[in-house]
């Protein structure tokens, strides 16, 4: 998509944007503009949780289903690469959801006593969306990871 942004070929780009929107609408049953509004809410929530520190990629592994059978109970596993010693450990991991009514899901607070920064829980996802995890280390650095989860809606189970 970044390559498309610099392309002067408006008609082709137009087609791509339209098909993209159609795909999202088909997957979620909602217009993409709503997801965009929630994206801003997630950014604000991240700022509230970890401050202005710039986020780096890496170190976080998110274990989420590609397709969640039911949005009521989506298992999430989180692991952050860290020695978990008194001088170098993961302080907290904050989980956010871009397509939920509220961005916050959970904040997990670790200590060196954990040995590993690895935890799992279950969350609600209203629709297909990105799940964002932000990890704050004891030295103040912040890491970030995003994973998309498709949520099945409709049918007899939905």
């Amino acid at each position: 998509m970044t390559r498309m942004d610099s392309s002067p070929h408006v008609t082709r780009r137009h087609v791509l944007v339209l098909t993209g929107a159609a795909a999202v609408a088909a997957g979620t049953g909602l217009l993409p503009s709503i997801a965009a509004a929630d994206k801003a809410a997630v950014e604000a929530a991240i700022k509230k949780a970890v401050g202005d520190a710039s986020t780096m990629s890496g170190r976080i592994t998110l274990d989420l289903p590609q397709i969640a059978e039911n949005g009521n109970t989506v298992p999430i596993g989180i692991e952050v690469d860290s020695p978990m010693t008194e001088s170098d450990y993961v302080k907290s991991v904050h989980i956010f959801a871009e397509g939920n009514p509220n961005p916050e899901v959970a904040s997990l607070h670790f200590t060196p006593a954990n040995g590993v920064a690895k935890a799992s829980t279950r969350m609600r996802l209203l629709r297909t969306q990105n799940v964002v995890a932000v990890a704050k280390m004891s030295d103040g650095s912040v890491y970030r990871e995003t994973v998309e989860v498709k949520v099945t809606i409709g049918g007899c189970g939905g």
Partner: protein
Amino acid sequence: MAKPRIKVPKSAAKGEIVEIKTLISHKMETGIRKDRDGNIIPRQIINKFTCTLNDKMVFSADWYPAVSANPYMAFHLRASESGKLNFTWQDDNGETYSTSADFNVS
């Protein structure tokens, strides 16, 4: 109703990393659902989970309405000292649910 369920290994070798699993019965009412008459059902969730070992905090979590009903939380612990693990869950209504387990390090 039901007591919280916790899974803690009875004993662990010093330095071993063990997984602790917890499960508690709670509807985790989001505060955005409506009843049949169209009135908002007030939010009532467990908003905080904590685990201490010999009164020292080892793990805690803040929960929001997006945490599923009957919340499940699993985390790890490096076996360093024997003692009592205390688990607490704080409800929006002011109630605290708790349970404990012995943890033996050999």
